[in-house]
C-alpha cells in the first residue's frame, strides 16, 4: 500500500500519457485535458503546504529569538498584509476583486516590481565580476572560452578601426555556426537523458522521489 500502489500509479499514468500522444481521437483528448487540469488544482493544495512551511520557519525564528528574528517578522508582516489585501476582507471578500485591491496593486508595483527588477539588474555586475575572475588563460579550454567571449563582446565596438567589421563577422559566425552545433549536441543528449530518466521513473527504477518506509 505504502510503496507498491504509488509505483503502480506512476506506471499507469505514465503509460497512458505515452499512448495518448498517438491517439488523436476525442476520447483520449478528453482524459488528457482532465489530467492536466487536475495537476494545477493539486498544485494549489501544495501551495498551502508551502505557505505553512514558510510561516512555521519564520515564526520559529521569532519565537525562539533566533539570529535575525526581527527580519522574519518583516516576512510575516509582508505575507499577512498581502493576503489581507488580496482577499479584500472588508469589502468584497468573496470575489477575485481582491487582486484589483488598491493596496494589493501598490504593494506589487512599489515593492515587488522594484526589488525584482533590481535583483535582475544585479546580473550586470555579476557578469562583470564573473568575467574578471574566471576568464583567465589558465588552460586551453579556459583560453577558448575567453577568446570567444572577447570576440563577441567586441563585436559592436567601433574603436578597432579596420578590424571592426571582421570582428563583427567572426562574432556572428561564432554565434550562428559552432554555437548551433554545440547546442544541438547538448539538446540531443539532454533529450535522451530526459527520455531515459522518464522511462526509469515510469518503470519504477528511479524512485528516490518517493522516499522510503
Amino acid at each position: 500500500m505504502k510503496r507498491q500502489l504509488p509505483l503502480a500509479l506512476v506506471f499507469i499514468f505514465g503509460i497512458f500519457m505515452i499512448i495518448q500522444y498517438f491517439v488523436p481521437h476525442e476520447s483520449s483528448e478528453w482524459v488528457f485535458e482532465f489530467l492536466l487540469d487536475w495537476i494545477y488544482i493539486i498544485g494549489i493544495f501544495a501551495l498551502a503546504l508551502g505557505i505553512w512551511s514558510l510561516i512555521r520557519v519564520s515564526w520559529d525564528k521569532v519565537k525562539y529569538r533566533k539570529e535575525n528574528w526581527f527580519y522574519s517578522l518583516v516576512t510575516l508582516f509582508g505575507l499577512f498584509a498581502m493576503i489581507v489585501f488580496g482577499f479584500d476582507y472588508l469589502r468584497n471578500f468573496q470575489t477575485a476583486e481582491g487582486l484589483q485591491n488598491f493596496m494589493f496593486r501598490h504593494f506589487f508595483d512599489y515593492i515587488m516590481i522594484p526589488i525584482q527588477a533590481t535583483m535582475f539588474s544585479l546580473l550586470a555586475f555579476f557578469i562583470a565580476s564573473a568575467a574578471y575572475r574566471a576568464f583567465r588563460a589558465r588552460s586551453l579550454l579556459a583560453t577558448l572560452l575567453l577568446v570567444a567571449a572577447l570576440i563577441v563582446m567586441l563585436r559592436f565596438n567601433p574603436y578597432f578601426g579596420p578590424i571592426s567589421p571582421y570582428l563583427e563577422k567572426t562574432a556572428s559566425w561564432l554565434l550562428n555556426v559552432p554555437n548551433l552545433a554545440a547546442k544541438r549536441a547538448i539538446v540531443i543528449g539532454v533529450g535522451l537523458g530526459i527520455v531515459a530518466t522518464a522511462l526509469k521513473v515510469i518503470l519504477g527504477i528511479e524512485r528516490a522521489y518517493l522516499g522510503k518506509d
Partner: protein
Amino acid sequence: MNIFDRLMSVDRRWVFLFLALVCVITYVAEFPVDITVTYEVENIYDFIDTLDPGDIIFVAIDYDPNSLAELHPMTYALVEHAWRKELKIIFTALSQNGPGMADLAIRQISDSLDIPRTYNGVEYPAREIVNGKDYVFLGYKPYPALVIVGMGQNFRIPFPTDYYGTPLDQHPMMKGVQNYDQVKCVIDISGTSGVDMWIAYGQTRYGFPLALGLTGVMAADYYPYLNSGQVFGIMGGMLGAAQYERLSGNTGRAIDAMRVQLYAHIVIILFIIMGNVGFLMTRGHKEGL
C-alpha cells in the same frame, strides 16, 4: 605581493564600483559615441536619404508595447529622418495592441519637427506636419495577411477610412495613390512573425522594395532574405537603431543606451585583460624562479 598579483586579485567590489560609476556617468553625461555602421542599416538610410521631397514611403509599425523599448528608437529615428527630407508617409499598425502606441509615437515625432534642427551639417527648418498632407495613419485591421494582400490591389480595400475615421480620398496626399506601386518602399518595423507576411504576401507578390526593423533576437533569422535580395536592409535591435541615429546625425535614445553598453563592455574587457596580464606575468615570474 607585487603589482601583478594585485592585478589578479582585485576585490570584486572595486569591479562593481567601477562598472557602476562608468554606467552612471555614461548614462547621465551626453557625449557622442562612435557607432560602427553596417551596410544593412546604411542601405536603408541611403535609400531614404536619396528620395525626392514629396515621395511617399510606407512604414508599418507592427509591434506592440512589449517590444517598444527596442523598436521605438528605430521608428523615431527613421520617421523623423523621412519627414526632415519632406517625404510623405503611409503608416499602418498591424499588431493588435499596437495602434494606440503607434498613434502616440506618430504625434510625438510630428511635434518634434516643430523645432528647427541641424543634422549632419544640413539645416532643417521647423515644419508643421499635417495629417493627410505629410502622412496618413491607416491603423489596424485583423488578418494581417489578407490586409497586406488587399493593399496590393488598393489601400482602400482594407482601409476605406484611416485610423481617425476620415475617408482616404479626403486626404490630399492619397490622391492618385492606389497601392504599393505608388510608394517608393515599405519599411516594416516588427517584433512578431508579421514580418513573414510582409515577405510572403507583400514583397514576393508585389515586388516592392522592403526593409525590416527587427528586435535583436529576431534579426539573425532574416539575413537570408537580405542575401537573396528580397529585403534591401535590416535594422536589428538597439544596435540597429543606434546606427540609424548615427547616420542621420540625430542622436537619440538608442545612442544613449548604446553609450552605456559600449563603455560597460569596455570596462568588462579591461578587467579581463587586467586579470590575464596579472596571471601571465606572475606565472612567468614563478617559472623564472
